[in-house]
């Protein structure tokens, strides 16, 4: 839990943060958004005492932060910045082990923890011995997140962590970040200047302008009830479509209407099974539940015989994709249904176009 009460920060004559009061609940993901220079970074850095504040009070876990040694405080708060700042002279393992070592954990416990945390951020264990210069941008960002989470802090501060990543990889990182948060339930403050990112990731959004907190609310509330013109402009014209993006693929995953088979099974036997059960779609998985291929049994028509199609690399939807993303993938693939996987690429079910349309209908009826 983080509580800011009437916090003010000036740099010389410039008021960077003006009389801010904000209550951030335990286990929630709060997004700070606003134009460049509005005071997002300053507010974040005040929470871990990298920037001292002039007036007001900040309480973290029931203790005013000014009563805590700043070094101690920071070891218990994860911190991720856009440039990541991995230490180039240390391996991934050593980078992630920094805070656990500062906290004097036993070596065995550190090793176990790092194995676990690399798994969490979906990095192969072989990354442990690599150096930062050998990593791609997205991999570095995952290591940065792993490093911030290594000592199991309750609170995570993230300052535009995906800001420097290309759009395609940014979407992927967002998806896996959401899956991770679903698992770890940390109290997270996440700074962004991308409204779509704020809507996609946040439980709550704090909208900031020129050092003032303009609106702080649940995402759906902000979309349906913007406080003023500034918020409306920030949200853009397509507020209703953005509201759609609050719904995630995971809310529409179906567990039936298909069968799964092992990818070692012969096509003939798959075809036979499908006909017996009168099922049109089968997914072949390997022993790790990773999706390998797809089989489709097409209906016979007057002119055509029934056809059995093998599809070695089907389109996939991630659990954390929002409906907009799922919809556009389906349109692009020209499919009425697509398989859904989680962050570990394990198959979890399918999603159908007809279900999404029902949702769209509901929405447009409301507004």
């Amino acid at each position, binding site marked *: 839990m983080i509580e800011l009460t009437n916090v003010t920060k000036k740099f010389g004559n410039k008021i960077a943060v003006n009389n801010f009061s904000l209550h951030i609940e335990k286990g929630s993901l709060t997004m700070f958004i606003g134009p460049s220079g509005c005071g997002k970074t300053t507010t974040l850095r005040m929470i871990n005492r990298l920037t001292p504040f002039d007036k007001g009070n900040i309480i973290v876990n029931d203790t005013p932060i000014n009563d805590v040694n700043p070094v101690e405080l920071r070891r218990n708060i994860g*911190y991720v910045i856009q440039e*990541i700042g991995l230490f*180039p002279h240390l391996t991934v393992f050593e980078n992630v082990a*920094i*805070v656990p070592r500062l906290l004097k954990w036993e070596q065995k416990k550190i090793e176990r923890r790092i194995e676990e945390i690399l798994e969490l951020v979906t990095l192969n264990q072989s990354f442990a011995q690599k150096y930062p*210069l*050998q990593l791609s941008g997205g991999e570095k960002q995952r290591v940065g997140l792993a490093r911030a989470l290594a000592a199991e802090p309750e609170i995570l501060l993230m300052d535009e962590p995906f800001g420097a990543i290309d759009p395609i990889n940014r979407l992927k990182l967002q998806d896996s970040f959401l899956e991770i948060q679903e698992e770890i339930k940390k109290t997270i403050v996440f700074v962004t200047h991308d409204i779509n990112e704020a809507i996609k990731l946040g439980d709550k959004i704090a909208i900031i302008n020129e050092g003032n907190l303009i609106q702080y609310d649940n995402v759906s509330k902000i979309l349906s009830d913007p406080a003023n013109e500034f918020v409306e402009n920030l949200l853009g014209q397509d507020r209703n479509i953005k509201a759609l993006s609050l719904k995630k693929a995971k809310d529409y995953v179906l567990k039936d209407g298909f069968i799964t088979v092992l990818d070692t099974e012969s096509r003939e036997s798959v075809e036979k099974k499908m006909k017996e059960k009168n099922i049109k779609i089968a997914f072949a998985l390997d022993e790790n539940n990773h999706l390998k291929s797809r089989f489709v049994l097409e209906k016979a028509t007057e002119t055509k015989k029934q056809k059995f199609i093998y599809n070695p690399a089907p389109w996939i939807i991630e659990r954390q994709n929002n409906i907009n993303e799922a919809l556009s993938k389906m349109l692009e693939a020209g499919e009425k249904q697509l398989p859904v996987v989680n962050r570990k690429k394990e198959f979890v079910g399918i999603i159908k176009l007809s279900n999404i349309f029902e949702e769209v209908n509901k929405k447009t009826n409301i507004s």
Partner: protein
Amino acid sequence: MNILSFYLNNFGRIMSALEVHIFIFLVALTFSTVIGMAISIFVTQEGREKIGRIILSVMGAAQSVPSLVIIALIFIFVGIGVKPAIIALVIYGLVPIVFNATSGILSVRPNIIEAGKGMGLTQNQLLWRVKIPIALPVIMGGIRSSSTIIIGSATVAAVIGGGGLGDFIFIGLKLQKPEMLITGAITVSLLAIIVDYIMAKIEKKVVSKGLQIKKT
């Protein structure tokens, strides 16, 4: 032929001059490194970056002062003998070490320092575990140039009684015995090359592998 026979006939003398030369070099380099690092660490602490920048320009300028000037000044103020010679070499050897270490530490990227602070490293931990290891390739480069400079300048320091291989060169000059002069010059050059080679090996060893990777 002359040189070879001079070498063989005076082998003992050459070896003891070499020993003195190496001794002076090691003592001077040790002091230069310790004092140089202390100065660099002091001027690069947070809040003193301005002093750091000033020191950098001073050292940049000092690098172009000839060693003979320093040696002459020390001669005037301290006198003659091995000690004044070593003092002069320590001062002269400081310049590349302070220059490189200061610029190396100051050029550690701010986001790395920010991340370190954000994780709760103390100023000391930040210095010894982050800034110095990252600046180490540059620091080692400074220590290497300092080695070469001290070995070379120690030859000149012979004029104020430093001893070592410089004696051969100056006496060879005075007595117009080129074989003596050349022997001294060749031995000093070989020493400088070998020391630089050893330094390169040490550098490769102490600098993190992560900093030696070439970006592909």
